[in-house]
């Protein structure tokens, strides 16, 4: 285990003040489900942080609330809370489903949505649904707050545009209209405790079978979770049936391979991504899709 001093923030301003002064030597911890493993890894190229700043005492960063036509989720909200929230299950069920697919009960009880975003694993499960919702993130430092879209925040594998003196405070998005369909699909090596090999989140508004708005985001396919705008454009205005879903899946696989190039995993990922996109579209397009 690396050596460091431990600081538990009592208030948000205390945490921000600490970061303003000591951000270069500090790592922030919330649920710890990723960072604890990094801290224990025997990596001689990293001496470890001088300080660990613990945010888990900041109850002001916890919780899910509805504000008008928006839902806001505090950064310290756990995956268990996301999975069990009646509001999320009602308005954006694919986000609850994605949170429920994370790790195990023990991991979901500790791991937070803020950690999932800022750790920025390409395979992070809450990111595809949040991207499909066009979520925005509120970042806060001693100097003030700024908002960025989740797309702007994610800059690469395990990399974000969060500045070292900043903390992610909350993530928020517009509540999709009535009649919007959702689906989250994930393939892992087993059901529990599996990191996504591929995941897809789809948000669709349909009017008499015709696609109005389509949002398609993939996880574990690219350097970070990302939307596939070409697939969304292809879908919009079309009548959704099996063939269109199949075509969209094909296009998604093509676009991903275009970006990543052909790798050892491509012969597996290409057909699986196609199938997942097709399945997600048909599930989201089905009446009263869960």
């Amino acid at each position, binding site marked *: *285990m*690396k*050596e*460091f*001093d*431990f600081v*538990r923030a009592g208030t948000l301003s205390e945490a921000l003040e600490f970061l303003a002064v000591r951000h270069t030597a500090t790592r922030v*911890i919330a*649920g*710890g*489900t990723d960072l*604890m*493993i990094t*801290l*224990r890894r025997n990596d001689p190229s990293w001496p470890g942080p001088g300080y*660990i700043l*613990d945010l*888990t*005492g900041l109850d002001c960063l916890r919780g899910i609330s509805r504000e008008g036509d928006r839902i806001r989720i505090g950064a310290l909200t756990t995956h*268990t809370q996301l999975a069990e929230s009646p509001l999320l299950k009602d308005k954006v069920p694919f986000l609850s489903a994605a949170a429920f697919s994370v*790790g*195990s*009960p*023990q*991991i979901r*009880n*500790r791991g937070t949505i803020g950690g999932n975003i800022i750790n920025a694993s390409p395979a992070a499960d809450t990111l595809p649904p949040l991207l499909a919702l066009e979520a925005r993130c509120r970042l806060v430092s001693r100097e003030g707050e700024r908002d960025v879209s989740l797309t702007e925040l994610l800059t690469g594998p395990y990399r974000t545009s969060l500045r070292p003196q900043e903390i992610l405070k909350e993530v928020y998005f517009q509540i999709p209209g009535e009649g919007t369909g959702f689906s989250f699909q994930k393939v892992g090596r087993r*059901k*529990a*405790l599996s990191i996504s090999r591929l995941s897809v989140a789809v948000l669709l508004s349909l009017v008499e079978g015709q696609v109005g708005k389509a949002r398609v985001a993939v996880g574990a396919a690219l350097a970070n979770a990302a939307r596939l705008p070409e697939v969304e454009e292809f879908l919009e205005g079309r009548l959704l049936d099996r063939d269109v879903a199949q075509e969209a899946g094909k296009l998604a696989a093509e676009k991903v391979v275009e970006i990543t190039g052909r790798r050892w995993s491509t012969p597996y990922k290409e057909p699986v991504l196609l199938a997942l996109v097709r399945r997600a579209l048909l599930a989201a397009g089905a009446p009263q899709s869960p």
Partner: protein
Amino acid sequence: MKSTPLRLRVNGKTIETMVEPNQRLLDFLRDELRLTGVKEGCGVGECGACTVIMNGQAVNSCLVLVGQANGADVLTVEGLAEDGELSPLQQSFIDHGAVHCGFCTPGMVMSAQALLMKNPKPSRSEIKTALSGNLCRCTGYQQIVAAVEGVIKKVGADSAK
């Protein structure tokens, strides 16, 4: 590295002490408090052998820094028995032959306990979900699920008497 003050409740007892800041809750429970029912399996949150209940929820104590447990209420397998009597859940593990080598048992029991605290009458699939973060390498899962189902039935029958 400066040692850091810690105040928490473990198995109903309040503890105030100074700890090394880079200890895990797992290390503190085992090495300082000698609660060796808390097992270390994988050390990366995959196996559940180190499961304890923290503020009512099952957590992997290998993934919690001890300082993060400040103010918490922690329950380990040692806290389940009362006056030397095993809890109904522990007894049910024995009655159903749900203990093989025993290494995963405390973690399994604590995950099941956390479930029952939240949901006294879980379905079979809820039991399986609640135990999905615990590995048993003897692969005696059937008996473990049966033990949890058994205690629900038994407690139900006893309270109906």
